[in-house]
């Protein structure tokens, strides 16, 4: 899903390269546009994992698009997450900035594989809820690097990472793949990578196969990694609606050019109990995580393919 929604291949880039070489000149420039701001809504950003440490759910309010990078916090909400066995985790806004946190007791982690979780929020007289499930996740067998040019026009070489994992057989799996360079998550809009059975969506029957090629190398920053970088790759199990959510998110925040998709609202799984009440946006998900962290050094470097 990197860069384009079409099978992960950078179709648009091939096209642009073609046009560039054909002497045509396309151009993108920022312009000023007055946008009318719509009514404010509750925005949920909650992703809980089975990793050690506190879990957080961020609540904000939507605001005008150009101001949305610093949204007003949604304060004074009651936030709980309950599992199927009615074990309730309370999330508290400790700092009073809309970041609601649940801190585990020593040795405790959040979540069990196969269990469903309910998020409940009471905010400004409305009750919202969302449901997610923690699915199983395959282990990452290895993470290796090959020396390559970041793109054909550059002389400099970097290291392209490739991770190996095998899709869990006999079940339909959805994954979210994240990568970190020296502890910092790759957070370009093009870094949203989700996978269906280790492949793309559609009718792809790749159940039980090694994750397919473009997915395996979907963990690289544009400039590739440098020697001695510490690289961490995470595979998170997600639900089908989360997969769909991420696809839409990626489409909508990477949407320009000749072949843009029609702008549409990214879906949400958060529902207001009062059907005629204000709607919420955002997403609540729970994931099991498998990860691998290695250093870009000789032992992990494979000869390049060329």
């Amino acid at each position, binding site marked *: 899903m990197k860069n384009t929604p079409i099978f992960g291949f950078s179709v648009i880039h091939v096209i642009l390269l073609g046009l560039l070489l*054909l002497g045509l000149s396309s151009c993108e420039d920022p312009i000023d*546009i007055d946008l009318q701001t719509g009514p404010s809504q509750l925005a949920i950003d909650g992703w809980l994992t089975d990793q050690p440490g506190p879990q957080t759910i961020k609540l904000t309010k939507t605001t005008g698009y*150009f101001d949305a990078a*610093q949204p007003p916090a949604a304060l004074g909400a009651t936030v709980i997450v309950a599992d199927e066995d009615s074990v309730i985790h309370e999330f508290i806004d400790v700092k009073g900035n809309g970041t609601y946190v649940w801190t585990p007791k020593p040795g405790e982690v959040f979540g069990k594989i196969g269990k469903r979780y309910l998020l409940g929020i009471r905010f400004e007289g409305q009750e919202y809820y969302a449901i997610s499930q923690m699915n199983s996740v395959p282990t990452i067998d290895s993470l290796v690097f090959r020396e390559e040019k970041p793109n054909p026009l550059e002389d400099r070489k970097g290291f392209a990472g490739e991770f190996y994992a095998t899709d869990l057989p006999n079940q339909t799996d959805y994954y979210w793949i994240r990568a970190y360079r020296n502890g910092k998550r790759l957070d370009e809009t093009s870094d949203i990578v989700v996978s269906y059975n280790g492949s793309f969506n559609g009718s792809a029957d790749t159940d039980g196969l090694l994750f397919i090629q*473009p997915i395996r190398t979907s963990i690289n920053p544009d400039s590739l990694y440098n020697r001695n970088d510490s690289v961490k790759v995470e595979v998170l199990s997600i639900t089908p609606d989360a997969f769909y959510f991420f696809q839409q998110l990626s489409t909508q925040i990477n949407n320009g050019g000749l072949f843009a998709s029609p702008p549409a609202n990214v879906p949400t799984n958060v529902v207001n109990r009062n059907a005629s009440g204000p709607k919420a946006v955002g997403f609540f998900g729970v994931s099991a995580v498998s990860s691998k962290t290695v250093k870009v050094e000789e032992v992990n470097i494979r000869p390049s393919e060329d």
Partner: protein
Amino acid sequence: MKKILQIGLLLLLVGPAVRAQGTSDPAPATRRTSAQATVSGYIKDAANGEGLIGVSVFVKETGSGITTNSYGFYSLTLPLGTYNLVYTYVGFTKQNRTIDLTSQNVRLDIELKEEGRDLQEVIVSTKREDDNVKDIAMSVNTVEMKTIQKIPALLGEVDVIRSIQLLPGVSTVGEGATGFNVRGGNVDQNLVLLDEAPVYNSSHLFGFFSVFNPDAVKDVKLVKGGIPAVYGGRISSILDVRMKEGNSKKTTVSGGIGLIFSRLTLEQPLFKNKEGQARGSFIIAGRRSYADILAKPFLTGDLKGSRFFFYDLTAKANYRINDKNTIYLSGYLGRDVFGADFGFNWGNTTTSLRWNHVFSDKLFLNTTAFYSNYDYLLDSDLKRKDPKDYFNWKSSIVNYSIKPDFTLFLKNNTLTFGGQAIVYDFQPGLANAASGGEVRTFGLENKYALESALYIGNEQLVSKRLQLQYGLRYSLYNYLGPGEAYEFQTDVPPNQRRFPVSTTTYDRNETIKTYGNWEPRFSAKYELNEVSSLKMSYNRLAQYIHLVSNTSASTPLDVWTPSTNNIKPQIADQIAGGYFRNLGKTGTEYEVSVELYYKWLQNQVDYIDGADLLLNKYLEGDLLNGKGRAYGAEFFLKKNKGDLTGWVSYTLAKTERFVDGINNNRWFPTRFDKRHTLNAVALYDLNKRWSFSATFAFATGTPATFPTNGYLFQGYLVPHNAENSRNNYRIPPYHRLDLAATLQNRKKKPTQKWESNWVFSVYNAYGRKNPFSVFFRQAEDKRTVTLNGEQVQIPVAEAVRYSVFATLIPSATYNFKF
């Protein structure tokens, strides 16, 4: 299935039946209607033997007349007597003939000579000087290749589709977009015919160039309304492109060298007899872009072996067996290829075989059999550097068709009838994925359909002033097995994915779903006086195949899908009316027309938000069914004669759609809705050597959906439209000026065969950054702010104008002919 067979049989039977009638010795027929006789024949260009389409044959004595059909054939039935006929065709010297029709039918083939070159007159559009007023056809634009050749489009290349975009009622979603929109219709609603075979993707290099090689094109006709019964299968327009037949007098070679590609065309007579008359001829024309060849020295390392080019080959041959039979074989093959390691390519192939048969002086038959194929292929690793890991994917639409069309020329009536059967084979997408050496093939099963139609139409001269054209077409569509048909949930709120609830498997040739539509057609023309007329028309059209595409410009990867048990055929009803007038000293110096139209569209294909259109078995569950309406007024002023010619067209239009679940169940403007469109074309001949052209285009900005709000999710800035509205804003307007100059090179000797010219052009002369779209995104660089005493990086929101061409584009092309 029975029904199809019946229709098929009927089609087969109609031919011989009529033949039996037609061949039953013309003499007794003449005797039976002894008061009448017929004059008929072919009209050709004296210079190269090309059949001339739309030549006017006028009878001085009766004031009546007719025009030649697409093959240059005409037939006129008159009371016995002696007549003076006038053959006129714009740009050609008029010919007068006296014929003796006192005792028998006359066969009269005519060759018309092009008017002296010294006139250097540029002819804009109509064939007969007063067609604007006199012809019953409305909402029809013909553009002479001579005119198209004077308006070079992008990079100095003459282009058919970009030229018709300058006509009233025709627009596009933006520069570089594939296809064109006619009177509020989608790009897939135009039937683009190349020698009667449909072309499924009319573009090279996305929408920058069209697949038609201008050197091989004889005639281009766009029908936007009042569509005669002979045409069917698409609901917005017919673009009928006819290829040249090839010079039957002498061998000629022509070509051109441009910045982007080169062209070469060979025309040659075939089967010459002792007198030097040819029974046939052929033309073969090729084009290839060569940016990749020029760039080769610079492509090293990973880019070595990069390929990005397109080519096309157009060929046609004709053979006149005898006076009554002529056969034509035409073919087109074109492909775009892009890629280095990763690559994709796409292209059309069409072949059509036509047989013209003159049964009698009055009955003409053309039978066309065609094959058309559009396919594309995508591969993750063209070089198979790693045979264990790759991904490829292909898709195609293939069809075969047979189509007999009869024309029966009667006194004051021209009857047309015939039928068509098209067999479709859709491959919506078949993929191979190899991972770690294990290969899996997956994708969608082929889909099959049969579309058949029978039609009858008549063009009737009711009185000197009133002419009618009416007809009826019945189209029948069968969605056929083998395959699976799905039934989807019905209780899902609109604009949400519907999941299948049951699957039925069908055998080969088993009918899954049948649709039938009666399509009435009607046009009328009333001449107010010699120089002005009123015209009106109504037509209903049905369309059974749909292009599945929800990107702003359609892409080569879009897939055609048949109507199914879940996708209904699209239907359009259109009424149009207009006033047509000729002006000027000679009576036809200027043409003016005003047309109004209103269109109702049913079963328009739309998409749920986030629809998954590729390799999706349950695609139908992601499609929505809407309705549309389009209305507008088209104003057209054209100057036909003089050193300065050209036209101005202005269109005021509105195109809207209604889809349950979209835009809060309110009508919304379509992506290609443009309130105002103004096009002006001026052609000026300075002297024998220099001629100039200028084109100006203005259009209201297209609608776009802009966010009203935003929020952060996992650090990403997400645009959000709190009103859930569609197309709530408009991007800035589009305008552009193109200039071109043509220099005819001097001949060293008057007998010199080699003719050549230079074409210099500037596209987008004042370098406007015309927006193709305006979209919103987070900027690449983040901003660092202090939040609660912590340094955090936050995204920056920006609105971006995307322009396909941000500068002026100059170019030069050299054309030659010998």
